[in-house]
């Protein structure tokens, strides 16, 4: 299983919990994004930054069982 954290408005979109438990082992970051976007009707995920174990991960990185994932949407306010 994987602990998946959501930041900013994405956290509201998945119901506000601190994290979700998702079985993402073997999937790429892009696949997990697509799956979550469909399930929770998330706004555009392609430019959302992803961290795997607190390290920046590209869309083609493969997630291992037990990895902690965080989705951080770039915001533009200033």
């Amino acid at each position, binding site marked *: 299983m994987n602990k998946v954290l959501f930041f900013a408005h994405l956290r509201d979109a998945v119901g506000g919990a*601190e994290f979700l438990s998702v079985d993402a082992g073997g999937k790429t970051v892009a696949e997990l994004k697509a799956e979550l976007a469909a399930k929770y009707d998330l706004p555009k995920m392609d430019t959302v930054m992803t961290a795997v174990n607190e*390290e*920046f991960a590209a869309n083609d990185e493969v997630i291992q069982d037990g990895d902690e994932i965080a989705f*951080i949407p770039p*915001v533009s306010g200033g």
Partner: protein
Amino acid sequence: MNERYSRQVLFSGIGKEGQAKILSKHVLIIGAGALGSGSAEVLTRAGVGKITIIDRDYVEASNLQRQQLYTEEDVAEKLPKAAAAEKRLRAINSDVEVVSIIGDATPELLEELVVGVDVMMDATDNFETRMAMNDVSQKYKVPWIYGACVGSFGMTFSMIPGKTPCLNCLLRSIPLQGMTCDTGGIISPAVQMVIAHQTAEALKMLVEDWEAVRTSFVSFDLWRNQYTSLKMSKAKFAGCLSCGEERTYPYLDQENMTKTTVLCGRDTVQIRPSSAGEISLERLAGQLSSLGYVVKGNPYLVSVEMGEERMVIFQDGRALIHGTKDLTHAKSVYQRILG
């Protein structure tokens, strides 16, 4: 050394030598909203030799809750933010050379302004300008510090050409429908937290303590008590068009910019975004009406009343701003909502 900077000089990271460097440096601040006001005040008090600040908007009542340089008087006079900022900054520290520019930070203008600049501070409200800053940073080898916030959430990252990944490595394209302060709201502590990170980074760069510059990407949520610091060593993208071997600086090219056109005889400006893509009209309409805007829509467009203007947004991100012929103002209205 001036008594004025004695407490900063006592700080071991700066010292007399560091202060002398700060006094001789030039910082360019892009945007004079919440982040720009805060950064400008910190850096002016710190004694930066020259500060150039650019902004295209004027001061409005809804700015006062967080934009620390402005007063009710500035609102009453509808002063351009850059002009109001310059007045206040000069009053704070008359030793600093403050240059204010009222206008749109286009790639062309940024390429002029960056000459002789030591650090660029990001205080803009949209990704198009940030991508242009990012290309200018790479082309002229001037570091810049990304900062952004919305709600109780904020993020910051320092970018040093030739050393760190750049913004284009991280995003690969301009995010369409990014959250902005006009759609997601904003609390002042989130602004201050971003400013604290950005200006600390700036001071490190100004005293040339490059070892101390943070290499991680920080994001936090002050309401939900989240704080993360991401390692970015794997984020550099070899094929990046802004910082890779085959770089073209795509965001300095007018072709990749938001297109604004005045529609003849209609008191309307058309805006076409730089990157094609679909936006969710339903989500946008929901967001805007929950913020109290008068919103009408159908499956093809959303129409929203915004004070004296009305904006109509189509699914491909194109918009018509009715009630103005001012291109810069229309782009500002658009980017306030769509980021």
